[in-house]
């Protein structure tokens, strides 16, 4: 992520961050988003349920 892209995102989100801290935030976001930008979303399932029900349990499910 470039500083220019960071500023664009700040403008869109209506967020202000001190100019002297932008490089740190840029690095934080770059690290956080690296695996996301590296993923090929076509290779991941898109069937995640919003809720699950298990007839074997009285109520709810822990989802594991």
């Amino acid at each position: 992520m470039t500083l220019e892209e960071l500023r664009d995102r700040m403008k869109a989100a209506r967020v202000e961050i001190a100019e002297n801290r932008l490089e740190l935030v840029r690095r934080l976001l770059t690290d956080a988003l690296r695996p996301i930008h590296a993923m090929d979303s076509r290779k991941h399932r898109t069937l995640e349920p919003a809720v699950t029900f298990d007839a074997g349990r009285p109520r709810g499910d822990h989802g594991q």
Partner: protein
Amino acid sequence: MASDELSYATIRDIGARFRRRALSPVELTRALLERIERLDPGLHTFVTVTADRALADAKAAETALGRGDFSSPLLGIPVGYKDIYATRGILTTGGSALLADWIPTEDATCVTRLQRGGAVMLGKLITHEFAFGIQFPGHRFAAAKNPWDLERMPGGSSSGSGAALAAGLAFGALGSDTGGSIRGPASFCGIVGLKPTYGRCSRAGVLTLSWTLDHTGPMARTVEDCAYLLQALAGHDAADPAASRELVPDYVAPLGRGVRGLRVGVVREYFFEGIDPEVEKGFEQALATLRQLGATVEDVQIPGIQAAGAYTAILLAEAFAYHEHDLREHPERFGEIVRERMLAGALITASEYVQAQRLRAQLRADMNAVLRRVDVLATPTSPKPAPTFTTVYDPEYGFPRGNTGPFNMTGLPALAVPCGFTAAGLPLSIQITGRPFDETTVLRVGHTYEQATSWRTRHPNL
């Protein structure tokens, strides 16, 4: 004044002294309150010491013991609560100026459960601001110090919990863990911390940081003490939508079964990047001990492990979503570090957040597949020993990538256990992770290792 021997006793040992009338809960509580008064001004582990409440709790425990009530191992045991747990009628700050005067009207479920077990409430323990941002000098709430080296951080965000236990100021504590906030302080302070399975312990009444990653759990000086605390904490709670109805097993009785025949998988990719040589040496020695104790130790690979870094995107986005109103209306009431980190969450797109959750689902599937072949995973808890305050106060110091976040992504139970010291005397720690709701095996491995070593007998020179 509490002697070191008494202050560092185990919960089992204290219970035995109570039963044979060699010690009373009131005597013990008075001794700890005096120790806190003497040592805490130099450690800053407590935000609020509830001396009157502690003595009242201790008196009630003493009365119960006098009736011959030995039903709870926590009866009369002094504990502290991280200051993000709501406590009825008692200041709960979250380490934030926003909540500096907040007096909750209800207790968090975990607090209620320890109180039902007869625990004595010593007070509220300092936390990083909203369990996220370290306190810079001048912050309204001074940062806790590491009892092993006062120039170093005790870790966070359950910083007061870790430091108080290491200093012998409490016998148990509650922490919370969104990316390692129980296990990090446990690692840096040379104590034990358990992040249970997501849904195992209630989060009701605990301040939110990132609700799909937040966990509550116990911290103590030994694995068995953690097991006693977990026994009281675990179980369904209708007030927490994520709480599981999974049955609660006996966590204490199986501790002595050893590790012979258990399979330990060592994950080297990701968890050894940038590792300190002394951390690596201590970890390898711990593996050798587990082998000697009869466990099978083998390297394993988790295909999607590099995606664990997406954890930060989820954390930032959810933290901003939760705190957005106050961040926009009262930005000056946040410390600058926590404000910047949370505002960064506003810059993550909806698509990026969704993709991070999809990577998380894949990582969970990959880890669960590996845990069908081995019983537990082992990694260093932290790739480096406790950093100095000078290091973390450097304006260039970034958001550290730790070894704990991957297990918040997957929700698996993970235990930090001391595994040695650096040449400079800083604690080292091994992280044991298990299958969903298999805290029993995780605790058993940790306890067996702990009992085969003597690390727990070392204490900081205060």
